């Protein structure tokens, strides 16, 4: 087994955490994942986008929670004991994202990843890095860092908000 992993590493294979949103299977770089936990009650934030459910207390750190199902318009949005939150570490921040479920960790070689298809307009494909296959099922690989840093996520304060407050 160890041998297998090392040969995989040599050949440039990368590991992906796969998760489901509705009927679709997604994958993200496992190195960005800090932990996986259940969904807890959140403190909602006023005037925030719909998909920002609020913030939670993660061992003393205030972490925003984003519901990917709302963000991607996928699946039914219900919160029960099976709802999973993936805590990720991107852009020097800790962010929690709600998904329908976490399935597996798969290793993919670069040649196992196909370029994403062109959809025209409608689905935002700019965050999709490629399409992989795991156990015969299609896997949509996402660039989670780019996704979270996007302006539409409103997670990172834009420069216009940062200007000096001169109302002294």
């Amino acid at each position, binding site marked *: 087994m160890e041998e297998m992993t090392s040969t995989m590493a040599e050949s440039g294979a990368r590991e992906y955490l796969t998760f489901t949103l509705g009927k679709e299977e997604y994958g993200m770089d496992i190195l960005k994942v800090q932990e996986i936990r259940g969904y807890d009650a959140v*403190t*909602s934030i*006023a005037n925030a986008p719909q998909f920002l459910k609020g913030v939670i207390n993660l061992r003393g750190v*205030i972490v925003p929670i984003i519901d990917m199902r709302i963000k991607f318009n996928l699946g039914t949005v219900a919160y029960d004991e099976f709802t999973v939150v993936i805590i990720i570490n991107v852009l020097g*921040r800790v962010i929690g994202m709600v998904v329908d479920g976490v399935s597996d960790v798969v290793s993919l070689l670069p040649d196992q990843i196909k370029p994403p298809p062109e959809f025209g307009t409608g689905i935002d494909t700019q965050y999709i890095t490629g399409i992989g296959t795991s156990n015969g099922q299609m896997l949509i690989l996402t660039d989670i860092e780019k996704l979270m840093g996007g302006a539409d996520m409103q997670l*990172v304060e834009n420069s216009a908000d940062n200007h000096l407050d001169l109302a*002294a």
Partner: protein
Amino acid sequence: MSADLSQFFQVFFDESTEHLAEMERILLSIDPHAPDEEELHAVFRAAHSIKGGAATFGFGDMASTTHTLESLLDRVRHQELTLTAEMVDAFLETKDAIAMLLAGHRDNTPVDEAVVASACNKLRSIEGGEHHPAVEPVTDGAEALSTKSPDGTTEYRIVFTPPADLFKRGVRVEPLFEELVSLGELSVTARVEVFDDFNTYDPEQCYLCWDMTLLSAARLEELSDIFMFVADEDEIEIQIVEPASLHKESPALPETDSINNDNVSNPSPESPGRRLYDKNETAPNAFGRRPVDGTESSSIRVGVSKVDQLINQMGELVITQAMLAQTAQQFDPVLYESLHRGMALLQRNTRDLQESVMSIRMMPISFIFSRFPRLVHDLAAKLGKQAELKLVGETTELDKGLIEKLADPLTHLVRNSLDHGIESPEERRQAGKQPGGTIILRAAQTGGRIVIEVIDDGAGLNRSRILQKALENGLAVSDEMSDEEVWQLIFAPGFSTAEKVTDVSGRGVGMDVVMKNVQAMGGRVSITSESGKGSRVLVSLPLTLAILDGLSVRVGSETFIVPLNSIIESLQPQPDDLNTVSGNTTVRVRGEYLPLLRLNEIYSIKGAVAQPEQAVVMIVDAEGEQVALLVDELLNQHQVVIKSLETNYRKVDGTAGATILGDGHVALILDVGDLVHLWRKAPQI
């Protein structure tokens, strides 16, 4: 003016040591051919801060030495002079001299004035564009310059007597010779100096001395530079052979008996001036370090991150304790008496621990404020001005980390106010003001922020001069800029409108430092100024990691924390007291009509009580004006630890951060002032 400054000496010494270390780190890493501008600014700022502090505490020698250093640095920074390796060396030498002076003030260690003077001379000669050999190891300096032979070359006689441990220190000799050869014609003779017999021969020791004759156009200090990192001054002798004596039988041959065995085996423990760092690096007094003695200081400096960690863990402990206490409630006190006793003990211990941990960080701002009366007094005398300093709100508690970082910016602001703001007594009289100016230093905690103001009743900022200066400095400006925008220009690095550079201010470094330091703390700086009436600089800092007394309130299913110090009173309004003004509800409280802010509407919370007469109205103070906040009910009073929302998310309008409640949930802390802004901006219903 009898403020006892000695209690701050330690802080000054520690800060200066840090600044010096930083300066050295940068200077050692800087590339003289392509210096990074930002690094030059950083070195300059470090020097400026040391100078400011030294002047404040009356260490004139340190201030003047640093001033010399700063002057040259300033010209380099403005690209009037190009940085050379020689300059970097001179800077480092001066830095060592300053460190020595610092050690002198701190530990009363002996100070070698000659070294200080030589470092200063070196700097001045570089600045003056002349190259007097400032450090002449062994020469009669007077003749040194006049001994060039007609073809411009000088004959040097060099005797290099390396210490026995030369090779152990990792020094290679060949490159030295190569470097000398590159300067001119070199002939070398090696001598075996200290060598008894082969039985005691140690192959790792150096037993050789070299006599060299060099014909070169290079200057003396170029030669000494080559040996700088290799030899102490008594290990190398460089002499200039007089042209007249060229044909004589080497009259200036160095006395070889000065190089005795002692000298080689025990290479001069004392050579305080020259580059202590290339050798005695670990010596107790090197770099002005405090010698290790029995009297260790009674305080330790700990990284702020460690304290932060401690506070975070403390917060976790409090939450865990609250959780346990809640669970323990379910057990019958009669059957589980010892459990309940234990829980009570745990609660008390946790609270004590929390108080101790918090007290590590909190300090009254008087710690920095009280150093200013002296500063203003001395400075006013120096500038021939009359000024009075008023301190307001000295007991405001502030995070220690912030206090330390505030010292530099505040010093600069006060100095600037006095130097640029307050006019001379005659000018003031002409303007119809009291001859003596007033500077007010005020600190207050308003809602979620600490606000520190430096107010003077001087001449105010000169808009046209700032604009003109900005144009000269190549900044993008236009006449249509608002006053606020114009005032912001003075925060640009190297910006100064002072007509003459004094050692007080005018280099334009002050505001630059202020801005950088305050921004690093997550704060903002703003200026208001009125020509002829004075100006006010407002530094507003976030309350990160400070603790706050707050009242938790419920709105719908949400819990908020309202800072206790902004609450005036809470009441249940009578229907008669409620009126509307063009649709907006007002509450009458003792004859005053206050606008009613409905938290549930501002934060779109469903399920809150809509009828004010069935809910609770809190009268709060929002930056001087009173407003009424509508909440469902008041829950509890707590001390809460403020956690930043920005760490992982972004600032949320109307809040000063968040905190974690006893049940582990997050509650937002309201910033009442900001909330009012938010409410005004929102479309009214």
